[in-house]
């Protein structure tokens, strides 16, 4: 990958930011054309820094940076104007999406199509609709983009079409495998739910529950030993 000294007006989102020294900020940005980059925003935490109201998550931005190596220097951040800020449970879902990108995408590996899906997911989360279908659609797109597209229309054993009336397990590297006795298997999915996920239709309650379990299974596998904090925290918040 060639390193360019300067990038101008890259479409990007802030995924996360943490304080650096007294007045600066390190921004983990996700850009459409350059992938995930770490940027040093000098003076962004000064009381009257103009960057303060701009470098926030879930708002589309145009970022310019310069330099080489792991940490580039942010030169400019421009507000593109999107929707309103995320609120409530949708905000937690936004943090979850950001954590997925931070943990699963390598630095400087552009995924233009995924960026567009992310932008779309954030816009949908800001709306009034249900959050679960937005998460499932993004998880599916993320897995496909990482090279692990779900196989949902044929069973991995015989290659025959998925039967909506049958029960399957999902083998991570292979796909759905029919099971005769559902009791022994850890996680099972109905053929109907698998076909629903393939179509991107999560309206059926069974599909909604099972798609969540399936994505969790596959994402956990990709995460290897990393844990997703936002998942645990979301569960903790439900018990308040």
């Amino acid at each position, binding site marked *: 990958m060639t390193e360019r000294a300067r990038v101008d007006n890259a479409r990007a989102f802030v*995924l*996360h930011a*943490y*304080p*650096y*020294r*007294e007045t600066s900020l390190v921004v983990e940005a996700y850009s459409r054309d350059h992938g995930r980059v770490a940027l040093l925003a000098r003076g962004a935490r000064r009381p009257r820094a*103009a960057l*303060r*109201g*701009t470098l*926030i*998550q*879930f*708002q589309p931005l145009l970022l310019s940076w310069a330099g080489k190596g792991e940490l580039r220097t942010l030169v400019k951040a421009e*507000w593109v*104007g999107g929707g*309103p*800020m*995320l*609120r*409530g449970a949708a*905000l*937690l879902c*936004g*943090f*979850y999406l*950001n*954590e997925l990108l*931070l943990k699963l995408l390598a630095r400087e590996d552009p995924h233009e199509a995924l960026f567009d899906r992310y932008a779309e997911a954030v816009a949908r989360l800001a709306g009034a609709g249900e959050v679960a279908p937005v998460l499932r659609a993004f998880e599916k797109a993320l897995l496909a983009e990482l090279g692990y597209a779900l196989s949902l229309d044929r069973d991995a054993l015989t290659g025959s079409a998925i039967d909506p009336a049958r029960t399957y397990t999902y083998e991570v590297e292979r796909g759905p495998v029919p099971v005769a006795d559902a009791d022994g298997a850890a996680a099972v999915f109905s053929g109907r739910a698998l076909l629903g996920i393939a179509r991107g239709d999560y309206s059926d309650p069974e599909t909604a529950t099972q798609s969540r379990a399936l994505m969790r299974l596959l994402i956990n596998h990709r995460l290897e030993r990393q844990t997703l*904090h*936002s998942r*645990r*925290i*979301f569960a*903790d*918040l439900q018990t*308040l």
Partner: protein
Amino acid sequence: MKAPSSLEELAGALRCLPGVGPKSAQRMAYHLLQYDRAGARRLAAALTVAAERVRRCARCNGFTELEVCELCSSPKRDPAQLCVVETPADLLMVEQTLAYQGLYFVLMGRLSPIDGIGPKEIGLDLLAKRAADGVVKEVIIATNFTNEGEATAHYVSEMLHARGLKVTRIARGVPLGGELEFVDTGTLAQAFYDRRPT
């Protein structure tokens, strides 16, 4: 010359400070020992005393040397109002406004899922107990207007609404004396989304 081990130990200990790496820690250690032994002794004594005595106020969760801090036990404050802030620095800032006479609760942090900071890491259970003392009528949430602060505000408000309390959030928008021409775009955009009837 190899640095003596107590010097290494000191430099290592200084690295627990935020923003202090190995180089700065070494510089600080050399400075203290070379130019300012009295300062070093004073620092050591102050750290020992503070680490020993300072604890959390049983009511507001802020730092104090007493069981209940002076502010929480002041008869001049209105116990029916409780303001929730992220840090002691935020509390001081609200105090400077002289606009608020109620009591406080300091979370000592904010929800930040990506950093693994959840309701257990900040004192949300302590806040639930504190706000349910029967005297508090209104809880005013003054967490930061960052996404993390907003998430915190949302869950604090849900938790306290469920317990039948009145919950309010401080307003945000264009700063006082602020000319629109010079306000940052994000703030102005939010001011439009949050506009209110007059």
